């Protein structure tokens, strides 16, 4: 009897959750069509709230000495704050993870997300993306004395990749096109792959170019081949139209006048 009652209560709770979810989603689609004051709201608040990564080197990494988050993406935040609010320091950073960046945009806790957020067609349906400010692609790190000039020379090579990364498929596809055979060896962490490369267990270390840059040393080099390019954009809530348009025009301007290029060089991201 008690079980029965509890089950029905649980069902009622599920129903309430579903209804709440439905009503909130219809609510947002209604407002999406209207013109909005999202840019005005930011100007009125006098502060630009942005979600950034705090554990990705060169993009957004918290400096343990100062406690501040630093990186390429944080510099973009400063530029945007200067442009939109006239004050380079009128920003507030919220550390985000891949799991939290979307919901934090949706519930309005951040105005923008600049956190190595890859633009995909699927995500464009849920968020506004600016013109990409950075393009990352999978690259290959090899030993200088291996004599490899590109993937085409690497018949029979063993390539070290991170577990569950998409880089494996991307390289396999190009290898098939070139008619060469490569095999893969999977590792849990990037440092492990580097160790495998150093000890000769793999012939190449394959990961996103921006990360690969951190592992280049005297004995290794990055090959010119690039696979599976992915573009990072500034994301905003879908119905924040005026804000996203302002951001997009700023990013375009900085892409044209070389400001962004300069920042990429500053953070060593042009591998």
């Amino acid at each position: 009897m008690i079980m029965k009652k509890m089950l029905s209560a649980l069902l009622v709770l599920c129903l309430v959750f579903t209804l709440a979810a439905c009503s909130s989603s219809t609510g947002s689609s209604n407002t999406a069509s209207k013109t909005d004051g999202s840019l005005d709201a930011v100007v009125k608040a006098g502060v630009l709230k942005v979600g950034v990564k705090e554990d990705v080197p060169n993009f957004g990494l918290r400096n343990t000495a100062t406690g501040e988050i630093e990186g390429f993406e944080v510099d973009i935040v400063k530029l945007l704050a200067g442009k939109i609010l006239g004050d380079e320091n009128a920003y507030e950073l919220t550390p985000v993870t891949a799991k939290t960046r979307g919901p934090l945009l949706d519930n309005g806790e951040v105005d923008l997300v600049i956190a190595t957020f890859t633009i995909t067609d699927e995500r464009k349906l849920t968020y506004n993306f600016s013109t990409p400010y950075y393009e990352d692609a999978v690259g290959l790190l090899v030993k200088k004395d291996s004599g490899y000039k590109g993937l085409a020379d690497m018949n029979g090579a063993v390539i070290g990749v991170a577990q569950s990364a998409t880089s494996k498929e991307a390289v396999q596809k190009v290898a098939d096109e070139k008619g060469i055979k490569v095999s893969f060896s999977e590792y849990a962490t990037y440092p492990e792959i580097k160790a495998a490369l150093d000890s000769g267990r793999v012939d190449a270390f394959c990961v996103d170019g921006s990360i690969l840059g951190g592992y280049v040393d005297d004995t290794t080099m990055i090959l010119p081949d690039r696979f599976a390019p992915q573009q990072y954009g500034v994301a905003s809530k879908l119905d924040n139209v005026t804000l996203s348009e302002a951001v997009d025009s700023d990013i375009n301007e900085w892409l044209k006048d070389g400001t962004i290029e300069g920042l990429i060089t500053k953070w060593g991201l042009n591998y």
Partner: protein
Amino acid sequence: MLAVFKNVLTPSNVEFLAKGMGLTLMLSVLVVIVSILFGTILALLRTYEKRFFGKLAGFYIEMFRNTPLLLWILVCCFMIPYGTIVIRGGLALTLYTSAVIAEIVRGGLNSIAEGQFEAATSQGFTLIQTLMYIVLPQCFKSIIPSLLSQVITTVKDTSFLQVVAIPEYTRSGFVVMGRYTNTSEVFMIFAILAVGYFVICFSLSCVVRGYQKRTEMAQ
């Protein structure tokens, strides 16, 4: 080995990790205190109140105890519009831990003989007095071991909060890790994290065990 240790444990990193450890400790203490209070109330209701509130407490306990903690962290952090992210994360942990502690307390309450109530009533104790002076002290004494293991679990559960970027101990470890690319340095940071949790939880066990021994000797 020593070089790796020196590389990783720079003064600024140590200070940063210590801050994370501080937040972990503060969250654990608050969550445990509130959960024991709230959990005890839930357990009393579920054991001695068989009508509406008892059923409500039962429903609450079963709902939180049988669903993952991570779910409640995400729900609280994204759906509650008030408070900072730390408060919301702490709330999620408290809601969940209360339900688990309630069941532990209920186990203790069940071990107390019905006759205790009758005896107390015959001496003129009110229900609240009976609970406060007779039932709960006996109950807590018998559940100390299982309560302790839940407190230890809660300390470790705070590491779930790193998912929503709350700067507790595990999160600060991951932030520090961002700067290191060498395998041995990364593993050193994991080791430092593990040692941190071990020290907290093990000293907790020692303190409680020592207390138990002293009270046993006193009897």
